[in-house]
C-alpha cells in the first residue's frame, strides 16, 4: 500500500509545486514508484515546473468525472524510471472535483505506487479540501516570513481537524546569512512557534530558478545545496535518520576554519 502525501501551505508562492516536483523526482530516483497529482485545478503548474507541459492529453477532471481511466491520463517522465504526473485541468475550476472523488482516486492509485504526492492549491477552500481528502500524510511548506508562517499555522490546525495529524514541516528559501544578522527568523524560531516536526530546510538557491526555467528538478543536481536538501528530505520520508545539513558556513569558509583549528 502506497503513501498518499499532500504538500500544502495555505499561502501561495512558498514553493509547494517545486517541492512536489523535487520530492517526486527524488523518490523516483531511489527506485520508488511515484505518481504526482496536480490538484490545483484552473491554475495548473506542476506540468510546466517538471517540463512536461507539452505532453498533456487528459487531466484530473477527465479522470474524476469518468471520461478516462487514470492510467490513460498519466504522463510518464522519461528521465526517471518510475515517475508519473496526473496534470490538473486548466479550463475548469475547483468545484469540478469533490473530496469523495479524490479519495476514490487516491485509494485506487495506492495499489500501484509507493508514493502519491498531491500538490495542493493555495487557500483553505474546496481546492484544499479536495487535495487533502485522499491523503494519509501531510507536508506543510513555509518560508521564514510572518505571512507564510501564520498561514502554515492555520493549515496545521485544519489538517489536524481532518485527522491528518502530525504534519511535517519544510522550511523553504532559508537565507542563513540573514538569520545570522538577525534579519530573518531562524529554524528554531519557526519550529518553536508552530510546534511541529521538521522534515527539512531548503536554502534559498538560484539554481532552483534556473532548473525550473528549464523544466528540470534541482534534486538531481549533485552540486547544489538545495538539491542536497531535497535529497535529504527524500531520505527522511523513506524513514532514514538524516541529520540536518550544516548550511551556516559556506563550504570553503568551513574548511578554512577547520584547517586553522577553529572548529
Amino acid at each position, binding site marked *: 500500500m502506497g503513501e498518499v502525501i499532500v504538500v500544502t501551505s495555505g499561502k501561495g508562492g512558498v514553493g509547494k509545486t517545486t517541492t512536489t516536483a523535487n520530492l517526486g523526482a527524488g523518490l523516483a530516483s531511489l527506485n520508488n514508484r511515484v505518481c504526482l497529482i496536480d490538484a490545483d485545478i484552473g491554475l495548473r503548474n506542476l506540468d510546466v515546473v517538471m517540463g512536461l507541459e507539452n505532453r498533456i492529453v487528459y487531466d484530473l477532471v477527465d479522470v474524476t468525472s469518468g471520461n478516462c481511466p487514470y492510467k490513460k491520463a498519466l504522463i510518464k517522465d522519461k528521465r526517471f524510471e518510475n515517475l508519473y504526473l496526473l496534470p490538473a485541468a486548466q479550463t475548469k475550476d475547483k468545484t469540478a472535483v469533490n473530496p469523495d472523488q479524490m479519495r476514490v482516486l487516491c485509494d485506487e492509485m495506492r495499489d500501484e505506487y509507493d508514493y502519491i504526492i498531491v500538490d495542493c492549491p493555495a487557500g483553505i477552500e474546496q481546492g484544499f479540501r479536495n487535495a487533502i481528502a485522499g491523503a494519509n500524510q501531510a507536508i506543510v511548506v513555509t518560508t521564514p516570513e*510572518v505571512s507564510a*508562517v*501564520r498561514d502554515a499555522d492555520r493549515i496545521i*490546525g485544519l489538517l489536524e481537524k481532518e485527522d491528518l495529524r502530525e504534519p511535517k514541516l519544510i522550511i523553504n528559501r532559508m537565507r542563513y546569512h540573514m538569520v545570522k544578522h*538577525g*534579519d*530573518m*527568523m531562524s529554524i528554531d*524560531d519557526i519550529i518553536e*512557534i508552530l510546534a511541529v516536526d521538521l522534515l527539512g530546510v531548503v536554502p534559498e538557491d538560484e539554481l532552483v530558478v534556473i532548473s525550473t526555467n528549464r523544466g528540470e528538478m534541482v534534486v538531481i543536481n549533485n552540486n547544489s545545496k538545495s538539491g542536497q536538501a531535497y535529497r535529504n528530505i527524500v531520505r527522511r520520508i523513506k524513514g532514514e535518520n538524516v541529520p540536518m545539513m550544516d548550511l551556516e558556513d559556506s563550504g570553503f569558509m568551513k574548511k578554512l576554519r577547520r584547517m586553522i583549528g577553529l572548529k
Partner: protein
Amino acid sequence: MLDFLNKIFGRDNSPSRTVAKERLRLVLVHDRVGVSPQLLQSLKTDLIQVINNYMEIDEEALEVSLDSSENQVALVANIPVRKMKRKFQTETA
C-alpha cells in the same frame, strides 16, 4: 524595562528577526483562540464605560489584546490614564 522604554519612545532597536517572531506569536494567540475583532471591540467599549466612572483615560490609545505564556492565555489591556476623577474620591471621602 529598557524594552518597554524603547517601545514608548519609538526606539525599537531589536533585530527584525525578533520583532517578526514576537508579532507572529501574538497574532497566532488570537488566530488559535478564534476571537473575533468584534468581540475585542465590544469588550473595549465596555471597559471604557466602566473605567470612565473612576478615571479619565485616553480612549484612542487604549489597547486590548490577548497574550500567552506556557499554555495560558491572558487578556492584556494597556490603558493610559489622563487623570483621576476627584469627584469619586470626594464622594467616598
